């Protein structure tokens, strides 16, 4: 037997009174209650008694259980949705920041040149150069002081001479002894005076000191034989000459063993 409209409305009214108002769940419970009442009325029980019996069978707790569960489920779904949205936003922003940082890294030449970070230089020089083997001054000028212990010409004490001296007039061209990057081009009043350091690869560096002028600046790349400056007498020296050093893995070595004329 099917409930008439008034009987159905009465059940709906009861559910509303119990606070079950969410459409989705109300519809389902209403159908459930109606089906229960109908089956009791089929056994010749009057509508109101059938409703009372059905409701007591159902029990208050069950209404609450169903309703609360529905709400938690709903909240969980929303939470999951929110989590997904937040995650998406983070990934999106992260990607943009990464792209921007990358663009900056490649485009900003200044940052690249000014960086003291050796990994940047690794990038520039990947292949090992030949050891610096050219003669550092243009022209046939002699080595006047060798590598090793010697009496210091100014301080008059035994000092270790970390390079060689080549006597040449002021203005003689000083050239790079192998390809590389200028990592130092400095002017100092004492010591090396105006001096240049070339990094050839991860192993070798060469140093040219007491120059009168420099033709390069830090970050420049030079080829073997390129002019980098001119012989002078700047820094701690009396006579014009070039002081030339080779460093192998940070240790000074005798340039004489490298020079091939």
């Amino acid at each position, binding site marked *: 037997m099917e409930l008439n*409209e008034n009987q*159905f*409305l009465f059940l*709906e009214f009861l559910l509303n009174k119990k606070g079950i108002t969410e459409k989705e*769940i109300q*519809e*389902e*419970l*209403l*159908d*459930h209650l*109606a*089906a*229960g009442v109908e*089956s009791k009325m089929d056994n010749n029980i009057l509508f109101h008694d059938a409703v009372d019996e059905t409701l007591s069978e*159902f*029990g208050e*707790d*069950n*209404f*609450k*259980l*169903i309703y609360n*569960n*529905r709400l938690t*489920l709903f909240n*969980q*779904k929303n939470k999951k949705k929110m989590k997904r949205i937040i995650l998406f936003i983070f990934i999106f922003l992260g990607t943009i920041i990464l792209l921007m940082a990358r663009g900056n890294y490649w485009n900003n030449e200044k940052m690249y040149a000014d960086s003291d970070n050796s990994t940047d230089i690794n990038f520039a020089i990947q292949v090992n150069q030949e050891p610096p083997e050219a003669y550092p001054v243009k022209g046939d000028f002699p080595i006047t002081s060798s590598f090793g212990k010697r009496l210091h010409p100014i301080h008059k004490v035994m000092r270790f001479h970390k390079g060689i001296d080549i006597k040449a007039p002021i203005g003689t061209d000083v050239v790079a002894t192998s390809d590389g990057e200028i990592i130092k081009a400095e002017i100092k009043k004492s010591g090396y005076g105006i001096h240049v350091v070339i990094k050839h690869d991860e192993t070798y560096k060469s140093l040219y000191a007491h120059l009168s002028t420099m033709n390069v600046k830090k970050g420049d790349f030079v080829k073997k034989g390129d002019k980098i400056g001119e012989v002078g007498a700047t820094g701690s020296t009396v006579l014009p000459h070039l002081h030339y050093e080779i460093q192998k893995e940070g240790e000074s070595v005798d340039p004489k063993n490298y020079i091939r004329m």
Partner: protein
Amino acid sequence: MKNELIKGTLKTIILHLLEKEGRMYGYEIVQKVKSLSHDKVLLTEGALYPALHKLEAEGWLIAEKESIGKRVRKYYSLSKKGKIVSKEKINEFKEFIDSMRLVLNIELK
């Protein structure tokens, strides 16, 4: 029958019934379980509907609504995933029964 015992198997019961019957609505499931168990297993609505809604949210059940006038009936049926899970649950339960028989030393009639 004790509620705690039914609770652990409720999902298995629902999935299995829907596999056999195709599609059912809440009240129908309660009645079917009651008659199959000779009135021994009485599902409470407070357990059944939350379970149905959870299974639906899980994607194992598909819900369809049919309305006659003001009255709306919600039918449940198994999704593709639900069909696979249903078989898994039945096997799990069979294993459970076998293990319990050994543990509790129950002789089958």
